[in-house]
């Protein structure tokens, strides 16, 4: 596999004997082709479960059992309509959209405001506040499920959108604050001073200058947060019980026992849940890759 790296190619130059040159070149090309073929096969194997999901979502149940690798003998677009209506995926999609976007808005607003204050202004206890936010990145999310459940039960917000929006935002805030704060250090102090001379107070500076300037950093935060909110299962599982409030992953989990269900309907329902994230991934690949790696290393 290492044959596709250029080290092999350049070392060929050290081989003496001009007559062997073409032979070596040929050999190298064959090896590089074999390497690429292997890589292509690997890529297809990795993508296969997703491809299989999309193809199966158009199949009849007969096709799904009998010919798992074939294309559908008839393309059943009605699987999607059925999933939308019968399995309540339409409602779930609506819930996911509401919860995800309200959480995003709250995360970006509260996060950017805190990032601005923590990165540009100085005050006592600043170190402590920063340390608190760092600490949060170390806490395993699942260990908060039980205490959060008890707390929300007591204050009576279980089974509401708030039961998801508030914890989603809270857990995303450390990442949001650090990404935006790191970005804001590159903004020159003069920008704020100019805004202050123009007669802006702190709020004016924040909303008229800092907030618009932070958009690139907020975009990174938003993309990653979108994926996390949209895909979350654990919080939704514990905090939401009402059918009418279930998000997509939670509604899908009903299908997970795998016995006695309508398989092609499940595949269509899963496709509906997956399509938005795949589209986002296709558009923002580079940002998602870099952001997820940076987030993981810091966290």
């Amino acid at each position, binding site marked *: 596999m290492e044959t596709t790296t250029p080290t092999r190619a350049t070392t060929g130059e050290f081989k003496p004997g001009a007559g062997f040159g073409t032979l070596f070149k040929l050999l190298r090309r064959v090896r590089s082709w074999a390497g690429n073929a292997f890589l292509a096969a690997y890529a297809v194997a990795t993508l296969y479960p997703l491809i299989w999901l999309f193809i199966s979502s158009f199949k009849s149940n007969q096709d799904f059992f009998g010919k798992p690798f074939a294309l559908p003998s008839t393309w059943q677009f009605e699987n999607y309509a059925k999933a939308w209506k019968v399995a309540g995926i339409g409602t779930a999609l609506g819930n996911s959209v509401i919860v995800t976007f309200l959480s995003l808005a709250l995360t970006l607003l509260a996060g950017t405001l805190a990032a601005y204050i923590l990165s540009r202004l100085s005050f006592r206890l600043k170190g402590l506040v920063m340390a608190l936010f760092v600490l949060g990145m170390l*806490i395993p999310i699942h260990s908060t499920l039980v205490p959060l459940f008890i707390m929300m039960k007591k204050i009576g917000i279980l089974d509401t959108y708030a039961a998801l929006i508030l914890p989603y935002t809270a857990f995303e805030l450390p990442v949001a604050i650090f990404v935006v704060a790191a970005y804001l250090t590159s903004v020159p102090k003069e920008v704020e001073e100019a805004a202050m001379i123009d007669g802006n107070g702190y709020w004016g500076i924040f909303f008229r200058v800092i907030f618009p300037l932070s958009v690139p950093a907020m975009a990174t935060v938003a993309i990653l947060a979108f994926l996390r909110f949209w895909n979350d299962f654990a919080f939704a599982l514990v905090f939401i019980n009402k059918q009418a409030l279930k998000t997509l992953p939670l509604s899908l989990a009903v299908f997970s026992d795998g016995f006695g269900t309508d398989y092609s309907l499940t595949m269509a329902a899963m496709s509906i849940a997956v399509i938005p994230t795949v589209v986002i991934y296709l558009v923002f690949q580079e940002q998602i890759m870099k952001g997820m790696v940076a987030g993981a290393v810091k966290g």
Partner: protein
Amino acid sequence: MAAASRLRSFILVGLLPALLLYLIFVLVPIVWSAFYGFYEWKGIGAAKFLGLANYTEALRDPIFWKALKNNLIIVAASIFGQIPIALVLSLVLWKSSWFHRFVRSAVFMPMVLASVVIGIMWGYIYHPQIGIVNYVLDKAGLHSWIRDWLGDPKINMYAVCAPIIWANIGPYMILFIAAIQNISSEVEDAAKIDGAIGYKRLYLIVVPMIWDTIKVAIVLCISGSLKAFDLIYVMTGGGPAQSTELLATYMYNNTFNIFRYGYGSAVSTLIIVISMSLVLGSQLLMKRK
């Protein structure tokens, strides 16, 4: 004076939403769960103080230790599965050609899928009757290999590791590619002249030069293994007969299926202690080397 107080009120009001949300929903629950762990509470009525009984019960429960062992199996699968595969891919896939970009994107893709979808998909792939694994084995004539991949307690813990590895190679690969690009070209050139190519290059140059990054990756594998809850919940629910129970599913099943909130809180606290000590311990161990 007026300016200073305006600054102070801006800082206070500006930090309040983030700080309040964060304290209430992230930090306070941690403290509460340690506290609730001392009580017995069924969800209604008054809580009864038990002292350390919940904690000792968990530590005496063989299923708790089984769950911890399963968590460690996932850690091992991540370290010996994800890291080597990601390392090999990063050695081969560093170019910015469209082909390499495509393969990298494909490898990373599962990271954006909902874990519920991954779980259901692989549940079907492993399905004893309709799964494509058994279908392929059947067509290939390997009838003796056909089995109930998620139902057989001897192998199901290893079976669930496959989707975990499949889904998480991407970030490690990107991490390693960045680290390899940071190896100075002088080192590479010197190594080349000394004949370190191919596998020799991997063992003698790349691995030692990016060892720090590999250590980070190992720590990530450990903390990442605690996030496998969704996948296991969807694929097996911790069963059959609690054979695939993880610490998180153990906590979930004990809290929300049989309504032992105090016990669940105690287990949550133990999870925090275990994960913190695993991560800090591994970091210390890595530093010493």
